[in-house]
């Protein structure tokens, strides 16, 4: 585990991660990042930078420094063991069309 430790230079605004929900019922998806002085500005600028082509109905912004990320070095320990466990995939069920986004 490692927290994002990239410190913004003193003359630069903090970095924010932007998540956009494209339509009701769907998840917020990470779509990029931006610099802003505070949460209010981050939200406005996220709207201006990432939803100008009707991409969204809702936006989240999160300070990048608050994201806790898995360590790339531990990638094999974290993820490789799942490779041969196909029985964990619920591929034997057919989903009704109305919940196809799940």
């Amino acid at each position, binding site marked *: 585990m490692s927290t994002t430790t990239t410190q913004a230079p003193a003359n630069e605004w903090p970095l924010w991660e932007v998540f956009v929900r494209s339509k009701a019922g769907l998840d917020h998806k990470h779509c990029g990042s*931006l*610099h802003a002085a505070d949460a*209010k500005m981050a939200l*406005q600028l996220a*709207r*201006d*930078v990432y939803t*100008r082509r009707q991409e969204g109905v809702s936006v989240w912004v999160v300070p990048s420094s608050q994201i806790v990320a898995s360590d790339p070095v531990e990638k094999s320990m974290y993820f490789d063991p799942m490779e041969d466990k196909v029985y964990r995939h619920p591929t034997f069920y057919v989903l009704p069309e109305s919940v196809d986004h799940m």
Partner: protein
Amino acid sequence: MSIQSIKVGERADVRYLLRLADSCLILAQRLGEWCGHGPILEEDLALSNMALDLIGQARGVLTRAGELDGQGFDEDQLAFLRDERQYFNPVLMELPNGAGQGGTQPGDFAFTQARNFAVATWLLLLWQRLQASSDAEVAAIAGKAVKEAQYHQQHAADWVVRLGDGTDESQARMNAALTRIWPFLNELFHDDAIDAAAVQSGLGPAWSSLKPDWQAAMDEVLAEAGLTPPKASSYVSAGRVGIHSEHMGHMLAEMQYLQRAYPGGVW
């Protein structure tokens, strides 16, 4: 090859609509000057988005004005082929963005936001009232524009507060910006026969009727920003009747160049 300038008729409803359309068009042109030069990429996009919103609003109203004028002029002809005296936006819209710090910026950011704030607050009130216009097309344009204007107003108001309530330097610049826009605000609330005719026909409100709400919104934000409004001036500029500042001609030269050099050119 040169191309003939066009002239709109004297109809009051056409004039009323052109005052509004030209306000959007000319401010959009000024905001467009920031494109690619914003202080940060995110704000660059924000200003360009607003310019595009304003152009969209201008297009709708210009088209309607052209129909009422009855000479067959479309939005492009009205936007690009009139001479200076045929534009009816208040002078405030055409004022240059100002001198940027050290010549590295295309304008004064505080001035840009101060003007946006004053104009967006005014446009928001005007669009709100125009939703009830007796002209169905204008009412429909207003319905869409209200949402855009709300955002413009909020965004600019935030900057006025940030700069006003920021450092000594940012506050001094915002104060200077307010001093610069203040003498040109009276024109936004000055009535004449064009307004009277619009009220009569139900096309739209007299601009003066927007003043109390505009004043209240301005006072609220300026108070939050810790800024004192400059002293009211008695000067009334006359862009609304086609008498513009020395900046207008230069601006139009740049704005109209392409349509005049390549008549009818499209994307």
